[in-house]
């Protein structure tokens, strides 16, 4: 049984209230940081912990904090990215619903480390009920003196606001999030300048994922070195994985990084294997935007080693035989799944969510969706399969923000590993478009 750092008390009755949370050791990190540590010491602990961004990119959080420009007399901001909208990812929602005070505690400690006097939680518009929970928790924290003027007599003051988005996936991209928070249309900005220099209201800003910020109290309480002992190599600590799809026990699991993927899928402690006794066909390991891998490659790397739940192990083999840990949205598909249909579905999502600002993504996402629609419905040709790869390549790397890549990768990977299935849709359209039809042939592994 792995250690639970974030979710240890998640099922305690009333843990979403201030009193119960406090009784279970809540807000200790605020006391420790504000009373005994300087802001730089807090940042130093986060650096030592090796904590990496939990939102998808996996950029070291301490390093991000270190990049923050600190000119005299200019306000700085910490913004929490709670715009969790990646298909397959639903960990932040649970964390905020059940443990709102953990996020608030992390925001206070993090803001103190960064010298922010005003901080924001930008929450996805669809999660209005979570917004209410957070607002209630924030009011409790104000009443208890953990927010507002002169927190715990330390002389440090912080205001914390929750701001809802209007339901756009693109606002999870940090610069689009900042634009939206400023009240503008949520279009990603051109970079540079990066948010660390010119972020919210053109001031230095750090944008972190909910889970990243929630890990800060643990790191401050236990020490960065202690946190870094969990995990393997540069993947330290625990990670929330939201497992869904054809599993016996889908749900949210806090795992120690380094857990073998095979154990995660098949052990009773975690997902408990594939449902209905079926065979696993493919896995999307980190939210819909990461490359899909067939069973053989998700359980073992191309070199035959066990695939582990770490940033490095999952990306072993690059985009030829590997994938990414991403945001931890673990989607398992059994043998009855049609990969073409699934890819079309993902593609439809990115087509709908492209902001339309830059041409490759605006036009390319729609194009891919239409071609995939054709293939799925048995009207495609062999030439369409190559066209998909070509369009994906034209989008990838040529866009303003990573949404272009997020749309291109799943398509490119699906064709790479399941080309036979695409070809089967072309050669046997009648069979392939029958309800419940799925190709049972082997996947392409290299």
């Amino acid at each position, binding site marked *: 049984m792995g250690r639970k750092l974030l979710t240890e008390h998640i099922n305690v009755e009333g843990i979403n209230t201030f009193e119960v949370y406090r009784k279970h050791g809540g807000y200790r990190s605020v006391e420790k940081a504000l009373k005994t540590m300087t802001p730089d010491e807090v940042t130093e602990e986060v650096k030592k912990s090796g904590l990496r961004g939990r939102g998808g990119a996996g950029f070291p959080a301490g390093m991000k904090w270190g990049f923050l420009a600190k000119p005299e007399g200019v306000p700085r901001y910490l913004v929490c990215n709670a715009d969790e909208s990646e298909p397959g990812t639903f960990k932040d929602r649970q964390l905020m619903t059940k443990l709102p005070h953990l996020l608030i505690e992390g925001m206070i400690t993090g803001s103190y480390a960064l010298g922010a006097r005003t901080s924001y939680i930008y929450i996805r518009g669809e999660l209005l009920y979570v917004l209410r929970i957070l607002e209630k928790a924030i009011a409790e924290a104000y009443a208890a003196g953990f927010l507002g003027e002169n927190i715990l007599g330390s002389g440090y003051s912080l205001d914390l606001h929750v701001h809802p988005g209007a339901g*756009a996936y*693109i606002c999870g991209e940090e610069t689009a999030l900042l634009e939206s928070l400023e009240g503008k*249309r949520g279009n990603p900005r*051109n970079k540079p300048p990066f948010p660390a220099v010119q972020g919210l209201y053109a001031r230095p800003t750090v944008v972190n994922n909910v889970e990243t910020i929630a890990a800060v109290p643990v790191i401050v309480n236990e020490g960065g070195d202690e946190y870094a002992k969990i995990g393997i190599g540069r993947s330290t600590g625990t990670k929330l994985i939201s497992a869904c799809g054809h599993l016996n026990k889908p749900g949210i699991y806090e795992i120690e990084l380094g857990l073998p993927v095979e154990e995660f899928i098949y052990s009773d402690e975690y997902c408990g294997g594939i449902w209905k006794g079926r065979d696993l066909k493919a896995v999307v390991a980190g939210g819909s935007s990461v490359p899909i891998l067939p069973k053989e490659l998700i359980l073992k790397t191309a070199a035959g080693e066990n695939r582990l739940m770490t940033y490095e192990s999952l990306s072993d083999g690059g985009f030829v035989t590997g994938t990414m840990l991403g945001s931890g949205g673990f989607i398992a598909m059994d043998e009855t799944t049609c990969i073409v249909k699934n890819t079309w579905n993902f593609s439809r999502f990115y*087509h*709908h*969510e*492209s*902001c*339309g*600002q*830059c*041409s*490759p993504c*605006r*036009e*390319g*996402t*729609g*194009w891919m969706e*239409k071609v995939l629609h054709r293939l799925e419905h048995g009207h495609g040709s062999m030439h369409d399969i190559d*066209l998909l790869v070509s369009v994906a390549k*034209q989008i990838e*790397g*040529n*866009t*303003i923000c990573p949404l272009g890549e997020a749309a291109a990768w799943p398509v490119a990977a699906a064709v790479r590993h399941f080309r036979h299935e695409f070809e089967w849709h072309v050669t046997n359209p009648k069979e392939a478009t029958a309800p419940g039809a799925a190709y049972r042939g082997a996947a392409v592994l290299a």
Partner: protein
Amino acid sequence: MAKITFDGIEIEVADGTTIMNAARQIGGSIVPPAMCYYTPLKGSGGKCRACLVKVSAGSAKDPRPMPKLVASCITTVQDGMVVENTINEQVMDVRKGIVEMLLINHPLDCPVCDQAGECSLQDFAFEHGLSTTRYEEERRTFEKIDIGPLIQLHMTRCILCYRCVYTADQLTPERVHGVLGRGDASEIGTYIENIIDNEFSGNVIDVCPVGALTDKTFRFKQRVWFTKPVNAHRNCETDKCEGRVTLWYKGKDVLRVTARKDEYGEVKEWICNTCRFDKKETSDWTLEGPAHINRASVIAQNHYELPVVNPQVIQDLPESTTRELERNPPLRLGGLNN
């Protein structure tokens, strides 16, 4: 000052210059195309991705190449930077891809489009595009909308460069013009068909790289290549309008009035709606002489004329470089040998 090498040509430019503007100082067909970037408009650029270039050395201090292609219109130069544009195959490939993306939802109605002949997309496609399409699906279409009595918006042709949005934002006091919707369903427009009611609103027609925003007083009057541009001025009473314009003649008639544009199609002085729409008699104007059209466009006497390299830059090059360039010229470095 920063010294950079662009397609093998060295040039020294002021710090803070963008790669695009450094290339424009060299001139010629090595200048990356710009579909959305517009120098007079703050914040423009970076959207169309037509000007992507390869930075094969970031700076003298850190000579590592940049991992991705960068938009040359918004990336500033660093001393010692080495940029590859027309000599880089990847850049050319990507550019072809961008043309394709811009064209898949474009109606290609050039034969009936007022912009034909002075259309940036037409030039861009002619220069970099393919003559066939791989797109078989239905194209996106919109209804035409009148934005007031003088300007018509035809979203079907729009490439969403945002130039008109910035123009309306920066030239007019109240913001009524923007982008609605998202993805390939986004459209430029005004909220519930508001009128852009402002003395400078006509400038959105000039900044539009395609035929999405057209002058209703000129619609279907004449193909632009049959009209003769003449520079003229008048003593304009509108605040901030200098009254320096280009008149487009057919015979004795002034068919339309536009702002004066430079070789990259950029307006240098905004003009007011009175000059643009109301003064269409020769007697309203003091004529200066024929306007020189030197941009690469079919409007240039039906010749597709390649732009010319700034002779000063070539003169300043060390002889070894010139010889190297002559022996092994960058792709289509038109005018270098002139």
